[in-house]
């Protein structure tokens, strides 16, 4: 048979139509699922804004908590969160990135290293309350750091380190082997290669992982309650050894009160928390964009 028969042409045209229909259906399904997620998020945001927006003013930002809703504010919680996030970043970024760099660039594929790698992946899935218990036992009690910002930051760093390490390793893996070989062939040591070429090239990816991890840390409540972040703080922490509260703790505290006004205050607190998160993400995008442009 040298030419397809007319029947075959007809049936294949029909078949083609059916295939196109299937593709279209699947595309619609995927789009629907995507929009469903976005819509739910929008509804939540709307609800929160409606409830909390009218409480959101300078008085709310600049006041300490109070048992009278009209006087209550989130000053100590906001400052506590900013302290906490700075300390967490200060601790977890160097440790996380250095670990990733070691595992990808320096370590030999020994059994011990494989064990470490496996455990890091496992740790990423451990519930946050467990980290709270570890923090309470190790940092608060054993190391006697008290219920301080440092204890909180160390606990949170443990929590997000696996995420930072895994994301950084993935970013480091995307740097082509040929770049490393080029550096080695010029008589560079492993460290010179890693510092001058691997880190800068993987920086955008590492930054994304770090921001995701820090965002998670900002929103975490359970470990902080566990190690004893206070719920009522009428002063600002002045150093890393001071007691503290943080936005999620404050929000949790307000939500658990019976009065309607406090629920609305919680909504206002959520808006502030989201704004802090958004600002961090925006900053990351700006830095990322700048470094990526430099690499091209």
């Amino acid at each position: 048979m040298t030419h397809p028969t007319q029947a075959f042409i007809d049936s294949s045209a029909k078949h083609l139509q059916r295939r196109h229909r299937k593709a279209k259906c699947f595309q619609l399904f995927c789009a629907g699922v995507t929009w469903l997620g976005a819509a739910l998020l929008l509804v939540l945001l709307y609800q929160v804004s409606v409830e909390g927006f009218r409480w959101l003013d300078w008085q709310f930002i600049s006041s300490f908590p109070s048992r009278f809703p009209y006087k209550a504010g989130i000053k100590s919680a906001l400052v506590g969160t900013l302290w906490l996030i700075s300390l967490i970043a200060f601790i977890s970024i160097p440790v996380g990135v250095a670990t990733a760099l070691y595992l990808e660039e320096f370590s030999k594929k020994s059994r011990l290293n494989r064990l470490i790698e496996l455990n890091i992946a496992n740790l990423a899935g451990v519930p946050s309350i467990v980290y709270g218990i570890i923090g309470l036992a190790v940092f608060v009690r054993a190391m006697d750091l008290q219920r301080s910002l440092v204890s909180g930051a160390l606990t949170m760093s443990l929590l997000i380190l696996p995420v930072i390490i895994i994301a950084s390793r993935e970013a480091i893996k995307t740097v082509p082997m040929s770049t490393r070989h080029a550096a080695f062939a010029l008589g560079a040591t492993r460290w010179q290669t890693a510092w001058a070429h691997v880190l800068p090239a993987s920086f955008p990816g590492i930054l994304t992982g770090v921001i995701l991890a820090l965002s998670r840390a900002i929103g975490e409540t359970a470990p902080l309650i566990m190690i004893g972040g206070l719920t009522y703080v009428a002063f600002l922490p002045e150093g890393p050894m001071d007691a503290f509260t943080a936005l999620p703790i404050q929000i949790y505290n307000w939500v658990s009160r019976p009065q309607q006004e406090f629920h609305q205050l919680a909504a206002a607190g959520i808006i502030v928390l989201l704004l802090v998160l958004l600002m961090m993400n925006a900053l990351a995008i700006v830095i990322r964009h700048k470094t990526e442009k430099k690499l091209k």
Partner: protein
Amino acid sequence: MNALEAVMSSPLQTTIATEDSILDIDDVSIFYSGKAAVNNVSFGISKNKITAMIGPSGCGKSTLLRSLNRMNDFIPDLTISGNITYCGQNLYGKAVDAVEVRRRIGMVFQKPNPFPKSIYKNIAWGPIINGFKGPSDELVERSLRQAALWDEVKDRLHESALGLSGGQQQRLCIARALAMEPDILLMDEPCSALDPISTAHIEELLLELKANYTIVIVTHNMQQASRLSDYTAFMELGDLIEFGETNQIFTRPAQHRTEEYVTGRFG
């Protein structure tokens, strides 16, 4: 007279090359996780000459080339036996620092691999990390001129090297290697990703560089090997089949396999 003729026609062509040999490959075998990729290969690399390594894919020529500046150190489960002697020292000796070896024996790779940085930084980085304190500007210009790239890039030294064409990128990689002023330049199929015009540029360049550098080049291109090189090593399945002056290898090969390969009957 008879004795001389006997030497000239002897199958041990290595004796010709080893007279002013700068790098001696002596009974070298290389194994990937116990499987041999190179078997008992011996020949010498002559100073200020171009030595070509030819042979079908998978014959071990690239593996052997990479062992000449210890770039194979990064491959896990690779073992090497025999001696590679450079300046009277075994490259794989205990006292030898691989970083120092790579500083003196440069390499240009199959695919151009400039750093994702400016043209200037691509050249200047190698010398700087190795303790070069002199004026970088001169060094960058000299290296780019040597690689016949200066005129094309002198107005955009601080733009990204990734904006260059493939041929320009490869010449940049050559300039980068030359900036280190290596004793020996190893080239692993440096033209395989390039068009004929860029290839011609680079071949011309290699012939000029010969005056100051010793070059070892792996190539799949028979014409390239015969045009460029002074000596040729023909390898097959990890064995060195024949080594000798390029002219002889291509016109009067001693081995039947060599003749079949260089005349294009297989491979």
